[in-house]
């Protein structure tokens, strides 16, 4: 349970009990797959961001909370290829639930009105969606999402044919040893650079993030993993995208 202890270390002991526990004895449940959606709301003009925050925090997130139990958070990009941007991360128990929830949300009159207002105000340049598949054990959201209020969150994707449909245990171990503790560790279900693995990782600060990745790069086992990828696939595990966020205030309000 090193993984969980490491997670606790950044949440602080006082919130240890608030973690959504993964039962070590219930392997079947831990291995059950979940659906994680990432929706990037690319904002046309930074001055419009408050409107989107108001929609997400005041309308969408409360509704999501009311019709499902799994976590959903919003994050503001601080370093991302498209900024300003708000990333909505939501977890569903299945594709069916995701589709059902989306349908219910879309049918809500006040959601439709809010979306129409956003559209007419040309708040958004683009909305990009990704659907990820994760096991229950690979989702490490704190029960109290307020624990994410400090620090930064990194969304990072790897193109890693050597990892097949799951990143190997050794990767998780090296990550953990380097101080990299994903909240989300998921495979991507469609798109470019398949197979692609996406991590959402919380760091205490940008400096802590730098140090953690530097430790990883120097880790002998990580170097072995890279060498293995080169020998089997002709190239090292590739980073295909990374962005850095902070928890959006609308997440805290919801």
């Amino acid at each position, binding site marked *: 349970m090193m993984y969980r202890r490491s997670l606790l270390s950044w949440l602080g002991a006082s919130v240890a009990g608030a973690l959504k526990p993964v039962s070590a004895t219930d392997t079947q449940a831990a291995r059950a797959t979940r659906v994680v959606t990432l929706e990037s709301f690319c904002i046309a003009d930074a001055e419009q961001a408050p409107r989107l925050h108001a929609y997400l925090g005041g309308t969408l997130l409360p509704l999501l909370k009311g019709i499902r139990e799994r976590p959903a958070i919003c994050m503001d990009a601080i*370093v*991302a290829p498209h900024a300003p941007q708000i990333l909505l991360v939501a977890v569903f128990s299945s594709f069916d639930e995701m589709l059902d929830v989306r349908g219910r949300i879309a049918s809500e009159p006040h959601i439709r009105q809010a979306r129409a207002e956003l559209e007419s105000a040309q708040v958004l340049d*683009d909305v990009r969606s990704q659907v990820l598949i994760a096991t229950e054990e690979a989702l490490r959201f704190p029960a109290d999402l307020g624990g994410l209020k400090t620090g930064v969150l990194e969304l990072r994707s790897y193109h890693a044919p050597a990892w097949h449909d799951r990143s190997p245990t050794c990767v998780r171990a090296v990550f953990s040893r380097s101080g990299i503790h994903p909240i989300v560790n998921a495979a991507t279900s469609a798109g470019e650079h398949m197979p692609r693995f996406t991590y959402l990782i919380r760091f205490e600060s940008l400096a802590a993030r*730098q140090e953690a990745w530097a430790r990883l790069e120097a880790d002998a086992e990580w170097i072995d993993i890279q060498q293995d990828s080169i020998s089997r696939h002709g190239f090292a595990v590739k*980073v295909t*995208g*990374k962005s850095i966020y902070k928890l959006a205030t609308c997440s805290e309000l919801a």
Partner: protein
Amino acid sequence: MAWTFKIYPSIGIARLGNCPGDTPSDFYVGPEIPGSVIVPLIGYKDSQGRVRRQAARFRIFGWEDGVFMGEITSSAANITWTVELANTKAAFNQFQGIGHTNGPLRNASVANRSSLMITPGPRTIGPSSRAVFDTGQFLNRPVPLGEIQTDSAGRLLLLGGFGNSGSPTNAPLTTFANNDGWHDDVSDGPVTATVTYAGQTYAASGAWVICPPTRFAPPITHSISLYDALLQAMVDRYGYQVPARPSFTNDVYPILLSQILTQWVSSKLPNSYYAALRAVIPPPATYALRDAVFQQFRLPSTPPTEATPHLMPAIWTDYFAGAKTGGWINHPFTVTQYNVMQAWRDGNFINDWVGPPSPGANITPDGLTRAALENCSGGPFFPGIETSFLTRDQYPFVEPFRLDWTKLQAGDLTKQNAVPWQTDFNDCQFQAPLSWWPAARPDNVFTATSNNYVAWDRGVKSGADMVNLWSGLGFLVQSGSAVIEIDRTI
């Protein structure tokens, strides 16, 4: 975890204006997306008829271990900007045409050469602050060159001069480019920044800013823009590769469009030329129609002083000084542009046409540079509007479109240009049989009330008039399917 930070646009453009205000309601930011035309909501001129300055906005983008991370703002880093502006025109050599950079000095009788150089020195600012370039002097007369300020995201906004030209010695204006005793407040210089990110401080790759005259015809694209000219320089001088098979939408159409749009700024081209251009849109058109257009273009390898009557584009050559024969000695498209058109003529192009392209929605690093440069003249450089042939032919670049900011001096990009700029601007009206830079300095225009061409510079009869009246000239705007003049106050 190696970070690289770079400033974009790598060459930015901040155009002068005589509206002195420096709040966001006084100026507007220049194009940041290729193909976009800025029509400020606050208007090109203020309520007193003064031309608003067009600011250049500089941003920093970051790469971590070679992976593009996006724009770096004050949300993630502490950014400190340093800019130096200078105007050294009066201390440089007289402009005598390309190939003559070692001619006699301007103001040769002035022994104290530094007294001719408006050099306020560098200014450094951090978040939410501003600094003014107000300590430069010309022959002991203060000449402010503009200011810098940072916005709430830590981006740099740079405002150029005010269009003030003058002579402390009351010297007469005698030539189009070399008027001793005169200054203007055009300027240029390096833009650098330090980025403190995650506890470490990095120097960003530097950029350059040019603060040239106003662009009065924003919807009109140049036959050869500075982007085109520098792209060719990257190909010729640095082996930069361009796609062998052009896109109709992205490569061919802009060249056709630049020719079609000439109708709104020049009365001199025959309607048959415009008809031929329109006949090849939409693609593919027949080979015969494409060839009919292509055959009208001057071959770039034609000796530069050789006349090629009636070939296009109908603008003067860089080599005007050696070609004063009254002949049709025009400036060709760049080799890359010409090759694009030849491939298109031959049917070797990607037919991706779904209609005239709309500007993209996203700010990108390269897009910032392209948007700035495609609104500048890439020739003829006789001597030029925004910069000179020195930038295209001689100055070093560290990567495509990024000058080596460590090897150039503030003022280098504009020192070869006319002093004051207004005399050149006045002289470079249509000069039979060719135009100079009709996209930058229109020859003939339409007004909202007339279907007949009128001279854009009507009422301006001399270089001295242009010094005094330039801000009263009209701007061109799209009005339905036409382009018309507005805001004229002369």
